[in-house]
């Protein structure tokens, strides 16, 4: 982990498939070539040794980050990237994400939750690295792989677990489910089932922030929005449309790409003409950064820069995090297409193990302290399950609530009264 912050990592090859790198410190691992003859998947990615990733002149701030980091590494200065407190906070959040998702899998196979459940194992560094830098009023928009984003933002584990169990105490009263985690209090704006459809929502939240500052004259409004989405989404129109609008109006948003190389069974290389997603930022006039998404400290450094940019009103940033999901796309995915060697490579870069090593090697925390945290998290997760188990299922009367904010929207019935005034309506037995 000590060699982690090398400038080379910033220019590092995002795709270990088919590519042996001289600059990567784990170049000893060779990958089997995919058997497909299709052009996209067998293409070699050639990056020169001087490869810094492609930045337009406008991405000056990114160079600044790598310079800072380079400085820190080359001086081998005693100043670390995090304090002990921060380290423990990050560790706790990573462990919470992992433990929670593992528990979800267990509960799913025990029949406590149903439908499509998409787990985040392996990607925790991205969520923790970014979201732990946010304030309460900042917003987070995610996809269907949203449990851990909600947890990192501060939604209680109990509320998320209840939601997954479909109980009325869930964060969305049991009406949303795994793919629709929302929290007004913590500004989690979803939870979306279709990929890409959350990005315009995030753009809208960022627009509100700018509007509040410039039209409503709330001068101190510097709320930032983070939009999380995957590599598959980066081929979707909504992604490009929103990159354009965000850069055009300098909206305070960070587009975080969680590139885990796979969209269900579709390899990113087979789906994308130019797989280097960060390059698409400068095309729209914003910096594009690639970062090792398995390393929470690196993610956090990049996130600081990107969020800072947004807060200062300098506009959006596109951050591509190279990450990996240890499990299948969802609990229904047999996950047969991915190469075991690839899985092993990323398992060796488990973000939790990496941070643990960093904390211990730099004497920021002892084994015992970390063990305490792990135990605490276990209890939190157990408690969440218990709470969810004991919570009531929604009553029938809940069926018609929340369809409209103003229930007059159900209209006027034949008797002249508004339908929502009908007693059957509140019982949930009315037909509307």
């Amino acid at each position, binding site marked *: 982990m000590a060699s982690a912050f090398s400038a080379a990592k910033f220019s590092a090859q995002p795709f270990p498939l088919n590519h042996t790198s001289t600059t990567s410190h784990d170049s000893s691992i060779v990958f089997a070539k995919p058997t497909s003859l299709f052009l996209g998947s067998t293409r070699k990615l050639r990056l020169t040794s001087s490869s810094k990733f492609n930045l337009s002149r406008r991405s000056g701030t990114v160079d600044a980050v790598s310079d800072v980091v380079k400085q820190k590494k080359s001086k081998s200065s005693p100043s670390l990237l995090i304090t002990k407190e921060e380290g423990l906070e990050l560790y706790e959040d990573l462990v919470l994400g992992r433990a929670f998702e593992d528990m979800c899998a267990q509960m799913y196979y025990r029949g406590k939750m149903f439908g499509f459940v998409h787990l985040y194992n392996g990607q925790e560094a991205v969520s923790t690295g970014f979201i732990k830098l946010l304030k309460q009023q900042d917003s987070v928009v995610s996809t269907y792989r949203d449990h851990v984003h909600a947890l990192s933002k501060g939604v209680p584990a109990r509320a998320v677990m209840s939601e997954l169990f479909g109980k009325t105490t869930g964060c969305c009263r049991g009406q949303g489910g795994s793919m629709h985690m929302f929290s007004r209090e913590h500004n989690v704006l979803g*939870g*979306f089932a279709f990929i890409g459809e959350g990005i315009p929502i995030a753009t809208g939240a960022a627009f*509100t922030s700018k509007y509040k500052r410039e039209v409503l004259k709330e001068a101190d409004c510097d709320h930032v929005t983070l939009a999380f989405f995957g590599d598959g989404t980066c081929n979707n129109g909504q992604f490009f449309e929103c990159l*354009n609008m965000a850069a055009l109006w300098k909206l305070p948003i960070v587009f975080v790409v969680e590139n885990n190389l796979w969209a269900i069974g579709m390899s990113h290389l087979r789906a994308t003409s130019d797989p280097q997603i960060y390059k698409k930022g400068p095309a729209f006039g914003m910096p594009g950064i690639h970062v090792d998404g398995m390393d929470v400290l690196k993610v956090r450094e990049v996130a600081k820069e990107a969020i800072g940019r947004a807060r200062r009103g300098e506009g959006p940033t596109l951050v591509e995090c190279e990450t990996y999901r240890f499990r299948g796309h969802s609990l229904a995915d047999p996950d047969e297409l991915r190469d075991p060697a690839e899985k092993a490579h990323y398992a060796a870069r488990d973000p939790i193990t990496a941070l643990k090593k960093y904390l211990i090697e730099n004497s920021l925390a002892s084994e015992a302290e970390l063990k305490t945290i792990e135990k605490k998290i276990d209890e939190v997760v157990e408690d969440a399950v218990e709470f969810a188990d004991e919570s009531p299922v929604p009553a029938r009367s809940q069926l018609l609530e929340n369809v409209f*904010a103003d229930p007059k929207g159900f209209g006027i019935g034949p008797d002249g009264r508004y339908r929502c005034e009908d007693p059957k309506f509140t019982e949930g037995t009315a037909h509307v």
Partner: protein
Amino acid sequence: MATGFHGVGAAVAALSSSPSNSFDSKKLLCSPRRSFPVRKGASFVADRSDGSVNLDLNPKARRAQQLIVNAVANKADSSPASSSSKPGHELLLFEALREGLEEEMDRDPRVCVMGEDVGHYGGSYKVTRGLAEKFGDLRVLDTPIAENSFTGMGIGAAMTGLRPVVEGMNMGFLLLAFNQISNNCGMLHYTSGGQFTIPIVIRGPGGVGRQLGAEHSQRLESYFQSIPGIQMVACSTPYNAKGLMKAAIRSENPVILFEHVLLYNLKERIPDEDYICNLEEAEMVRPGEHVTILTYSRMRYHVMQAAKTLVNKGYDPEVIDIRSLKPFDLHTIGNSVKKTHRVLIVEECMRTGGIGASLTAAITENFHDYLDTPIMCLSSQDVPTPYAGTLEEWTVVQPAQIVTAVEQLCK
């Protein structure tokens, strides 16, 4: 998207028998805003505008206007007497929309507009003319051509505290925004367990125009009607255009306001004071005895034209502009069905799956016992609207067909 919009000039008033483009409310039969008791043997002029205040009212009509019989009272109906003492002001429908929008923007700084060409261009039908100069480029936002994304952006803004009005340059373009309208606009309040409200208004011109071609002549109300969680209203006169615009903006629910390309130049005298039109109510255009004709938007004018002919032939049709396409005002409609026992629906949607189809089902379900004869529904043909003028005329319902239908119903 459209290549070349000519603004207001392209939207010609569709009223085929009118010698001039604009018209004034003349002698009124009745005011449209309230239900009336039965009137016998009135001589009247079936007018294209069912307007409001007018000092030219003949004595019978004026007396009738004093009577307010309305089970669901609302602000709009509360002061007929006082409105007849104020002269009001005359304007065109697109100006009425603008007036409503501007008043709401003055009233609440969170109301903003987004859409293509709404700012500097003033809106392709001039509904937002002058607003960008007054309120600034951020509040009247010119968006790039990305319907799905800017509609989603509007929804995100609505979730986080603003009250956006999203304009579709033509309603047909909102097909590209279907993802956001269905999934997020309609459903998000529910899937978030009520945590986020989406007080958005999505508006724009739709319907069959003058040879605009198939893609610019779509009726999206039929595609959107199944989406849970949204309300749909259609305006047809300057009075209800302004009233519905204001009500939609003030509503906490997402509302889709359908305007019609050919109605933007209708002229009417509307009250000076603040008023809204209830989003869930239908509008009684002409009370009658023999048959209930349900219609909305442009077809209202074809119906009123047919009503002229029908009255000369001795029929007494009751004409209701349903205005609220989702949900239906079953009270006004029901009362009418119970009175006349015959229903004719005249709509511009296509035969299959249109508003008329739903309305037929709703009436049959609720008022079957009161019907003397099966409901008749006149809709446009299930045909992409042809460019040729003659063909286009035959795809939509014409007044002659309405007359024939009523004669058949009343046999």
